[in-house]
């Protein structure tokens, strides 16, 4: 399924909705969206992943990149990720650095 991303950037919260499959091709699109918000005073990055059916390490690298680029105080919320994507986050220890939620605001 083709990858799609929608961004809504508010004063402190950037909300990105991801659809389809996130691989090393589509991760470039995701990273471009992060770069666009990187110089804004964002406190929370909300990633809606309910419709994301696949994520490779290229997607994980963009998560790491987000924190490194925007700053350590950035809170990353992942909303409704599919079970297999939670497995990937867990296996790689990234679930400790993000907050997995059913909805946002929590």
């Amino acid at each position, binding site marked *: 399924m083709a990858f799609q991303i929608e961004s809504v950037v508010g004063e402190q919260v950037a909300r990105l909705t991801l659809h389809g499959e996130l691989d090393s091709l589509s991760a470039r699109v995701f990273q471009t969206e992060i770069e666009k918000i990187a110089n804004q005073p964002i406190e929370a990055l909300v990633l809606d992943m309910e419709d994301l059916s*696949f994520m490779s*390490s290229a997607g994980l690298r963009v998560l*790491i990149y987000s924190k*490194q680029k925007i700053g*350590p105080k950035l809170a990353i919320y992942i909303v409704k990720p599919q079970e297999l994507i939670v497995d990937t986050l867990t296996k*790689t220890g990234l679930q400790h650095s993000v907050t997995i939620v059913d909805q946002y605001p929590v």
Partner: protein
Amino acid sequence: MMESKSFPGNVDSLDSLREYVGERAQQAGLAKKPTYALKLAVDEIATNIILYGYQEAGLEADFTVLSEITEQALIVILEDIAAPFDPLARELPDSGDLTKSLEDREIGGLGIYLTINGVDEFSYEYLNGKNRNKFVMKIAST
């Protein structure tokens, strides 16, 4: 019987590669979770072949997926003609790396870590001028 399918060595191929692996997994009767793990593993290794084996070396070439369904397993082999590269030779992230916070993370090694962790067997050989990355998913006996 071994089935063979080739893909152009660029990242646009990853989508159709995963779809093809998904079809073979379905034919082999793999459940959802092992199917996803195999797609992820093949995607990760193919990405390395495309980005580092081919593009970084200025090489335009196809890579081939060989696959076979036996009674016990689905076997998938990725074959490419890039310079010899053994994914198992590089250092994998250890438990210390995996518990680091995001801001302290080094970006790299996660793909191969997920590959090895996701499939039942992973092996590499360089044979007749080709890298051969082999993935085995066991078929649960009924």
